[in-house]
């Protein structure tokens, strides 16, 4: 890679002092604008939690309420419709943690197998998996629903759990992690010691691929937490709803009960803020995993 850009328009070193400061503050200012843009809706949401319904409409959106209604609002949220919101949180958590855990294990096993074993048609099978990455997910949801309806599985936990246990992109990442983190000699040593292939995978492969597996897990966890279309299509039973679906139902019923606006605002904050706090410390590790996965 030839890096040599012609030096014709280069700034002479002597004048670089002030120019450099000017550019640095421009760069920082641009980032600050982007940060403000990013945070504004979240701040609006945070202040919304402190407000009564009339205040949501009348007061300035970017300032807190004159009173303090956070606890009352949250209590109302969990009391509404016989406390169904707590149920939705639980459903979403089961669905996201369970789905992401299984998807991670299956992806890591498959990526490891693609990397460490030489078998007939390996690259063809791999190409099929990678083609799966490019399939628009929503395009297979409606046919999936029709299939689930044939076997009377719609409106069950499994109808939303099974489809999110598969992540072709995870296989792509896992193959890269396996080739980077698991030395072939170590596997040979385990085999010579008489360990079976599965045992070798669990004791050597999986352990070494731990950091990569965490990235795949976080990826899939967020994807499931964000998934709205699949539960919307599969579920009609209120008790099985995810948070997103539940809030959507409330949001669509604002016409009948204007107070749902307040509950949707409070519910959105309750569903979002703990997740943000949880993810900030994990974020750096996630980024490191992405770098190892070779997306560059």
């Amino acid at each position, binding site marked *: 890679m030839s890096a040599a850009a012609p030096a014709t328009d280069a700034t002479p070193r002597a004048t670089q002092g002030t120019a450099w400061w000017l550019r640095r503050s421009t760069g920082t200012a641009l980032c600050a604008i982007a940060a403000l843009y990013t945070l504004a809706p979240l701040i609006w949401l945070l202040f919304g939690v402190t407000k009564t319904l009339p205040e949501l*409409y009348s007061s300035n959106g970017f300032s807190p309420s004159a009173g303090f209604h956070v606890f009352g609002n949250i209590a109302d949220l969990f009391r509404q419709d016989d406390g169904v919101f707590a149920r939705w949180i639980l459903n979403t958590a089961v669905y996201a943690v369970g789905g992401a855990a299984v998807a991670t294990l299956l992806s890591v096993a498959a990526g490891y197998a693609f990397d460490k074993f030489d078998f007939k048609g390996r690259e063809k099978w791999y190409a099929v998996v990678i083609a799966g990455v490019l399939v628009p997910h929503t395009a297979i949801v409606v046919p999936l629903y029709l299939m689930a309806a044939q076997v009377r599985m719609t409106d069950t936990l499994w109808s939303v759990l099974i489809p999110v246990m598969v992540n072709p992109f995870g296989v792509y990442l896992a193959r890269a992690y396996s080739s980077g983190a698991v030395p072939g000699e170590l596997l040979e040593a385990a085999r010579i010691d008489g360990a079976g292939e599965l045992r070798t995978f669990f004791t050597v492969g999986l352990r070494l691929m731990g950091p990569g597996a965490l990235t795949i897990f976080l990826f899939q966890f967020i994807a499931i937490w964000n998934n*709205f279309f699949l539960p919307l299509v599969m579920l009609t039973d209120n008790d099985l709803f995810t948070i997103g679906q539940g809030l959507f139902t409330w949001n669509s019923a604002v016409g009948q009960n204007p107070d749902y606006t307040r509950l949707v605002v409070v519910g959105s904050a309750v569903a979002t803020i703990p997740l943000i706090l949880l993810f900030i410390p994990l974020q750096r590790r996630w980024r490191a995993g992405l770098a190892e996965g070779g997306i560059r």
Partner: protein
Amino acid sequence: MASLTSATRLRGRTRAARPAARAGATGGTVRPQRRAGVLLLLGPFFVLFALTYLAPMAYALWLSFFREKFEGVGWEGPQRVFAGFHNYTRALTDTDFLQGTGRVLLYGLVYVPVLIALAATFALLLDSALTAARRFFQTVLFLPHIVPGLIAAIVWVYLYTPGLSPVIDALDSAGVHVDFLNGGGVLFSLVNIAVWQALGFNMVLIYVALQAIPRNTVEAARIDGAGEIRTAFSVKLPQVFPAVMVATLFTIIGSLQLFTEPQIVQSSGNSSVTGSWTPNMLAYSAAFESNDYHYAATISVLIALLAGVLSFVVTTLANRRNAR
């Protein structure tokens, strides 16, 4: 199988760009124990993959060639009859479908370049010495990725709603009247929601690639007298081209699936967005409001086909550029 060939190319390129030595398969003859190992490790994934990816696509394809027909007075209920390309000609002459596809393509035409340009700009800014407090900005810009898409859409629609929105209040008092939820502005309102959500994620994708660039190439440019901006464009960007392409490809496929945001806008009740505003919304309403599963399946097939064609075009263009 356009999507398949392009997928293989995508893999080939990203792999080639990665210099890490592949320990690779151990080669030699495949012992029975090894074969059992492959089956046990790959089997579970492929069973579920077949069940949740291949089978629905095949089923949708099959359904798209049939339709329901009422015999006589229709007392016996509908009969499933072979329909040839009937559903496809219907879709391709259905103004709802054509307009929806047009909207999604227009949306993608605005959204994809804006998002990728912004993501690359901020990734470059955070990679350069031009910005202070880089770690803080990275974390803040990444936050929306963690916010569920539906909640992001709900919050933004509130910010677009007259009466609730401080933005509209502020603009009104400045004498500017905008309607975020009606007319031509809706498209940009939706692009804004999507950019807000995806900017940080795509920025990180490119930033991670930038961090992996050998520093000596950047140093060399600096010694040759290139400034930060010059270095960014002629040295850094060409080296992260594969990451930019992956981000672009994912964004294109994502924008074809546009559903959540317009659905929320539509259900807000004060918008011109209809229930068949995008092909995906049309498929949803065909399946669950008209119970026309054959037509819904046909639209699903067409969306997947469009994604395949676009992926193929993008990767081909990218490969041609790489070959140059």
